[in-house]
């Protein structure tokens, strides 16, 4: 049984007076326990909406989210049932994901289901590289990177099966991104947690993701193991993304910009994923023409 199975999820946004927007247009992905799946795409592609829908913060307009084979319901008015707490989230903004008025230790402790909270809090803080004394401090006494570590500790505290991380390091200084991303992926995989890592930074994902899924206008256009995505991208959009990344190195070329394109709407046929090589899936529209 796969830890996280997302089946044909559709998330729509209805704005009065305008046509309904399909932020997520029939996405199916899966993540195994202890695996890291990187979900990459640019702004507006729907990756955050998908992440929030998986966790239950947005309702699904159709489709299912299964954790260990069991469907998860979106957050309702009442307290979240224990069985649904197996999916947790790490948010993008380190400044708004912690309650500014409560001590950090208490916030982590709230997530610990069993007794022995204080010890567990200490363990978790150590696991994320912070001293036990951090528990008595308030969020504003920490840097952005440290706050993300606390957020990771809190996400791990409820012993989830799945963690969805929505751009967890984008708001941090470049020098700490790899560190924090690496910490998240190590602690998650060590605990057999399935990690869905959402990011716009393909280079960053390269280091920590086992597989990468590329999202474009609400659809997944390519999924493959990380090194395959980098060395043999099949979908034109994936290729554009890679070509646009500025590189280090004395001979680095100027990144190339795609020709301007408007909104791309793919029919279900065009968007259907085809296995072009073992473990390598690409949307059918990439296979049309040469």
């Amino acid at each position: 049984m796969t830890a996280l199975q997302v089946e044909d999820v559709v998330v729509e946004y209805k704005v009065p007076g305008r046509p309904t927007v399909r932020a997520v247009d029939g996405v199916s992905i899966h993540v195994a326990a202890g695996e890291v799946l990187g979900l990459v795409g640019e702004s507006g592609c729907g990756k955050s909406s998908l992440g929030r829908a998986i966790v239950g913060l947005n309702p699904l307009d159709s489709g299912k989210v299964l954790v260990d084979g069991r469907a998860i319901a979106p957050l309702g008015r009442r307290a979240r049932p224990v069985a649904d707490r197996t999916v947790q989230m790490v948010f993008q903004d380190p400044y708004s994901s912690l309650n500014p008025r409560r001590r950090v230790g208490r916030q982590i402790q709230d997530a610990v289901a069993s007794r022995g909270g204080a010890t567990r809090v200490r363990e978790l803080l150590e696991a994320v590289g912070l001293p036990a004394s951090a528990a008595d401090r308030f969020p504003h006494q920490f840097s952005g990177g440290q706050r993300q570590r606390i957020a990771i500790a809190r996400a791990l505290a409820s012993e989830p099966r799945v963690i969805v991380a929505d751009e967890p390091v984008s708001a941090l200084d470049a020098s700490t991104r790899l560190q924090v991303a690496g910490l998240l992926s190590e602690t998650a995989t060590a605990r057999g947690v399935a990690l869905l890592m959402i990011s716009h930074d393909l280079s960053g994902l390269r280091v920590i993701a086992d597989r990468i899924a590329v999202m474009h206008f609400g659809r997944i256009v390519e999924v493959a193991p990380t090194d395959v995505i980098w060395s043999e991208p099949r979908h034109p959009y994936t290729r554009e993304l890679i070509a646009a990344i500025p590189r280090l190195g004395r001979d680095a070329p100027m990144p190339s910009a795609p020709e301007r394109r408007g909104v791309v709407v793919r029919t279900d046929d065009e968007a259907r994923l085809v296995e072009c090589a073992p473990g390598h899936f690409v949307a059918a529209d990439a296979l049309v023409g040469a």
Partner: protein
Amino acid sequence: MTVTENSFETLDPVASADGRRWVPRWRLPAAWRRPLAIAGVVIVAFWVIVMIFAPLLAPYDPLAQDSARFLPPSPEHWFGTDGVGRDVLSRVIYGSRISIPIAVMLVLLSLVIGATIGALSGYFGGGVDAVAMRVVDLFFAFPAIILAMAVSAALGPSLVNAVLAIVVVSWPAYARVTRSLVIGLRDSNFIAASRLIGASPARTLGRDIAPNILGPIVVISTLELGNAILLLAGLSYLGLGAVPPTPEWGAMVSEGSRVFYNYWVALFPGLAILSIVLAFNFIGDSLRDALDPRTSRAVQSMEL
């Protein structure tokens, strides 16, 4: 005192630990150094002392009538005497024991009722919110004093009824403010995170939302104290609040306004009202500036 991670995280010692924004370490002292805030605090402290030590400070019994009517201010009667020979100074002093505690109680009651309705309305939204806000709109359609007068007149003139009337009129303002504060916070990430780990609505409201809206609510309440006193004084002035011989400041102004040429009868209680309302406003303004992240950090923040 910050937890350091590595040399890149701590960056400059003067910036906050994250180096991305300036932590206004000297925020509160700067706000309190403002002359108006200090004046406000001094005035309130003064009246509190007067309130507590009224029996020791008042030269005469505030209720004792005398034949020496309408005496202008003199060394024996600093504020003169009123229409039935009572010492105005003593009445003003004892009046503080009525106006101030009642105003505080008024605000607290209105706050509790209004904030509760506003918070529930903002948090749950939907039908509850729609109904509650229409009720609030209804109340806002009437000028406060008119509505208070109507309620008070219906219940009969007395201090207690005046208080009830003012509470009825004041709670909607708190409800609206609380509601918008809660709506502003409701979709924050830390609230979402809290709910994901299983916090119930009660927990979320009490533990996550309440502490974060306390600041603005305190500011509003402080400013509303001034309003409460004015409303109370107004109702008493109209004969709908405190009944004679209670030395309530508004009632005293009322009485004094009928004998205009004996200016001292209305002037001194009027000044008392003015001073305390101003004081509360000064304090409230300074609190607001201190709590507003933009103005308090404006001086220290710079982009690098």
